[in-house]
């Protein structure tokens, strides 16, 4: 009964490749997010979707494209991967009246 799940957990790939990370939440939340955590553990929001609609896009390069087929899923597709994209990517969900955000386990992306 995982609340927010992400796949894959680890992703190792070459520069220039295209990859996707999938996220699903079974909490019935309306809002989903992608956060990036760098090597110093700093967490920065990338995107937010509310009911499949993009509401936050934090000056992320357009090589990153989120896709929300329904409100329970928010996938992240990354084109032309660069070394600097190496990080841990977290999906999260929330409800405006809920008590806090629920985070997925993270996807550790390593670009070689």
């Amino acid at each position: 009964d995982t609340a927010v799940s992400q796949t894959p957990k680890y992703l190792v790939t070459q520069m220039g490749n295209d990859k996707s990370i999938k996220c699903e939440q079974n909490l019935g939340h309306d809002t989903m997010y992608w956060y990036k955590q760098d090597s110093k553990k700093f967490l920065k929001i990338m995107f937010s979707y509310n009911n499949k609609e993009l509401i936050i896009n934090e000056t992320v390069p357009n090589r990153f494209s989120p896709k929300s087929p329904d409100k329970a899923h928010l996938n992240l597709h990354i084109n032309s991967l660069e070394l600097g994209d190496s990080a841990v990517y977290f999906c999260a969900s929330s409800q405006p009246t809920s008590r806090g955000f629920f985070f997925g386990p993270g996807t550790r992306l390593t670009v070689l």
Partner: protein
Amino acid sequence: SQQGEEDPQALSIQEGENATMNCSYKTSINNLQWYRQNSGRGLVHLILIRSNEREKHSGRLRVTLDTSKKSSSLLITASRAADTASYFCATDVASGSRLTFGEGTQLTVNP
């Protein structure tokens, strides 16, 4: 600009001692939240304190909020080795819109 800053960056204590972490932020908030992240894992929500609240308790956790100083503290009492983790404060300026995280405090509780 980064919303939250935490201190200390790292804290090492013995089991049974209390641990206090502080967080400062820059803008007005709707609420402030604390999260724990165990090594290699996702973030887990610990406690939320609203802007009109000054103190909140949950088990061994006590959070205070001073909106005039734009600061918050997290106190963990009677710490255990299992409390070893990174702790982050996060501010929400409009309920559920986004969370802006601080830099985190790495807490190590030695058995």
